[in-house]
Every structure is written in C-alpha cells, then in structure tokens.
C-alpha cells in the first residue's frame, strides 16, 4: 500500500462539519479514538463543542452556519492552514423531519412543504455538501489523497414514507457523489456516503411512533441502528478506505 493512499500509518487530520450533533459528536470521538486529529464545526451547541475539545487531544472547534457558503470556504481554509493538511472531510450537518424551517415538528406531507421549507432543507442537506467538497478539493489539489464522507439517509435510496423534501435532499447526495467521484478521482479524492436507516438517536427521534413501529416490522434485524455503528462505518471510510469511491453505503439492518 502506498503511503500517499493509505493514511492509517500516521495521525490523519479529519474535519467533521456538524460535529456537535448526536451523530457528529460520536464520529468525532470514534475518529479521535483511532488516532485522528479532529477539527469540527458546530452551530448552536457550544456546550458539546467545549466538551469535545476538552476530551479529544488536539481537537479544534469552529462555529459554522453551513447555509453561508462564504463561511464554509473560510472555515475549511482555516482548518487546512492550522492542520497543514486535511485527510478526511465528513459532513454530518443536516436538518430532518420538521426541520424545513416552517416551525413544525411533524412528518410533513407534500401539502405542508412551503417553498422556503424546501429551500431551507436543500440548502443545509445538499448545497452545503457541494460547496464544502468543492472547497476541500481546491485546498488539497496536488497535496495528496482525501476521503470525503457525507451523511445520507435510507430515505434517499429506498422507498420509504419520508418527507419528500428530506428524501430529495438525501437522494441528491447519492447522485452528486457519483459525479464528484468521477471528477475528483484523478486528483485523489474519494467520496462516499453513508445512508443509515432509523437510529436510536439524532434526527430519528422525531420520527412519529407509527412509522417507527412500521420500520421495525420491516427491518430484518428488528432493531434501530446505533449511532456508534454509523460512526464506525464513517470512520472506516474516512481513515482506512483506499479504493471505494462514488458509493452510497446503506446501513439499515436489512430493511
């Protein structure tokens, strides 16, 4: 294995966007436990950000609103400057059910999705990933391999009763990473997505009870996914992967 492709030999530098969320913070901890130096962003959850920087050696936190493309570019630039290089970029920032900006906390039907809710959903879940990947590819061009991991959702790849704008925002990632893998592969960027089913925590908490029961009925393993299980796959793709690219890897217990 060539050192330029495999990064496990020394401590990789990993950036986690949305590192203070339920999934993001577990990803940060998992990466750090495998020897990575972690930089992460948070928006509102300053307490968790402090907790993480205190607990993880060398961890750096920066506040970032991913709806601000200029801020994405600046923040990633600062991380690269500070760490010298970036080996992996992981985006865990997302809004889910009821997170579309209209203040509701339910499982929206199409009729309930206003135009601004559609835009808000796509802005956070899809657009931010495009600009973050573009910037990291720019910053790291000619400087070695980078693994990118985006958080998708099973709602974007399998038929499920999901809010349509949420499903669209996650399905867009599956298409986007295929084209990105093609365009950025020659410069050594590998880009994949992890698409979890319903998890024990995180956005899944807002899933209505009847849909949760329905999920468990159809899920082969008859249980919800653990955040740690998502984090393990994300961490593998971020730090160990040398040849998987353009893939959306589903983690749903045989749904």
């Amino acid at each position: 294995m060539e050192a330029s492709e495999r990064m496990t030999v020394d401590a990789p530098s990993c950036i986690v966007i949305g590192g203070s969320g339920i999934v993001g913070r577990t990803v940060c901890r998992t990466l750090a436990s495998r020897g990575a130096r972690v930089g992460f962003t948070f928006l509102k959850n300053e307490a968790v950000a402090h907790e993480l920087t205190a607990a993880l050696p060398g961890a750096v936190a920066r506040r970032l609103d991913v709806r601000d493309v200029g801020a994405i570019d600046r923040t990633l630039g600062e991380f690269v400057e500070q760490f010298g290089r970036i080996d992996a970029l992981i985006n865990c920032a997302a809004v889910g059910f009821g997170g579309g900006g209209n203040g509701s906390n339910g499982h929206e039907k199409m009729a309930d999705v206003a135009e601004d809710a559609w835009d808000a959903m796509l802005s956070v879940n899809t657009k931010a990933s495009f600009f973050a990947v573009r910037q990291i590819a720019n910053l790291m061009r000619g400087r070695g391999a980078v693994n990118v991991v985006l958080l998708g959702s099973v709602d974007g790849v399998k038929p499920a009763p999901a809010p349509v704008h949420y499903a669209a925002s996650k399905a867009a990632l599956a298409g986007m990473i295929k084209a990105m893998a093609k365009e950025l592969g020659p410069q050594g960027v590998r880009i994949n997505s992890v698409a979890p089913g319903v998890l024990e925590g995180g956005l899944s908490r807002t899933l209505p009870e009847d849909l949760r029961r329905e999920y468990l009925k159809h899920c082969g393993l008859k249980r919800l996914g653990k955040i740690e299980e998502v984090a393990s796959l994300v961490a593998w793709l971020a730090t160990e992967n040398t040849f998987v690219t353009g893939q959306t890897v589903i983690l749903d217990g045989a749904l």
Partner: protein
Amino acid sequence: MTATRLLEGKVALVTGASRGLGQSIARVFASEGARVAFTYTRDEQGSRTTLETCRKSGDARAFQVSVLDAAGTETMVADLEQNWGSVDILVNNAGISQNMPLALMEEEDWDRVMDINVKGTFLTSKAVLRGMIRRKQGVVLNIGSLVAVRMLEAPIHYCASKAAIKGLTEALAKEVSRYGIRVNCLAPGLLEDGVGRNLPEHRLADYLKHCALGRVGRLEEVARLAAFLVSDVNGYMSGETVVIDGGV
C-alpha cells in the same frame, strides 16, 4: 492504529483461499485476530502458502473440499464446530470465470460457472447457517462483482452468477436477520489478480480509462474492507452489496 483487532476471537471460514482474493482475505482475517479455516480444491502449493501466512498470526486450518461437495462441507463444518466451537464468519469467495462470448459458450461452461459460483455459495451457506441460527449470531459475506450491478462487457455466465449472488444475499439477509445473522455482498471491480487477470490488453485500457482512480484494485485493500464488513463494529449492515471499484 486501532488498538484492538477487528476479528479477535472469531472463527472464520473462507472458501477458495489458495490464491487471489480468498488468500488475501484469509491472511487479513488472521492478522485481525480470527482463527481462519479455508477450503481449496487443487492448488496444494497455494494452500500451503495461505496456511503458513495465516499461522504467523494464529491458528489456521486448510480443508481440501469443493464447494459442490455438500457432504464434505458438512463434515468440515462439524469438525470446526467441534474443535473451534463455532463458525462465526463465512466468506463465500470460491468462484470461477472463463473469458468467452455467448456463441462459444457450451452448456457445460454455463453449468460449471453457475454451479461453483452460485450453488457452491448455497451449499456452503446451508451447512454453516444451521449452527449460526442455533447460536443466534454470525456473519456471511458473499463475494459478488461489479459486473452484477453495472452494465459491463463480461462473460454472461459469470455476470449471471454474480447477479444471482446479489439476489441470494438480499433474500438470505431477510430470512436470517431475525436471528441476528448479517448477510452482505462485497462487489469488487477488476483486481490485480483473480478472474479478471486474463482480460485482453485493450479491454483493460478501456476499463482503466473509465475508473476514476485509474487503476485496478489491490487484493489487500479489498480484503481489509471485507474484514471491516464482517466485524462486530459493523453490526447494522445487512442485505447490502458494497462496491469497491475505484469509481468505475
């Protein structure tokens, strides 16, 4: 980097491990802490190499048994369960291909590829799953291929057999995941060694032109993904086909 090895204390059975990807999987599994048993049919020398490499890391055993020998496979599994306690991980790797167009493909060619690649996976899985179901734990990893998920020019019997493996993976996952058993499929693109090594030069060049990372896969990196996929930390993946192809 990881302090604990991925497969510490596990018993793994890998079919067709006297060379190529199977040999690499056996070696990586052993280095990740598994006791490795593997099958081979004819290649005594290759099997000795696999055995010796695995034994540098721990216990290993070689069985000369065809995946089409149901009785021999049952005997092997019984032996492993008696002497090593269980079979925790099964990798259905044994497979063959022949580069030939449809017009030249005889019925025997079709049968041979489908038998070893598909029926062999069925027979070995059947023998091993009985114990996994009883113990309510286990992982099966079937080696598929990129040709099963993408439209590529490849021998039709081979493509059909690997597509069958994907279907088998999905149905078996649905059937046995209620016992806590996970079944997945690993689908590599062209590798540095294995069934694709006889590809004509111009076809290889064409393939590499369409591969984003611009090279064929290395056995070792596919084997390391296999080790992750069957490990306990990957406890929620089942019924999936994971493609590793460098972005074809």
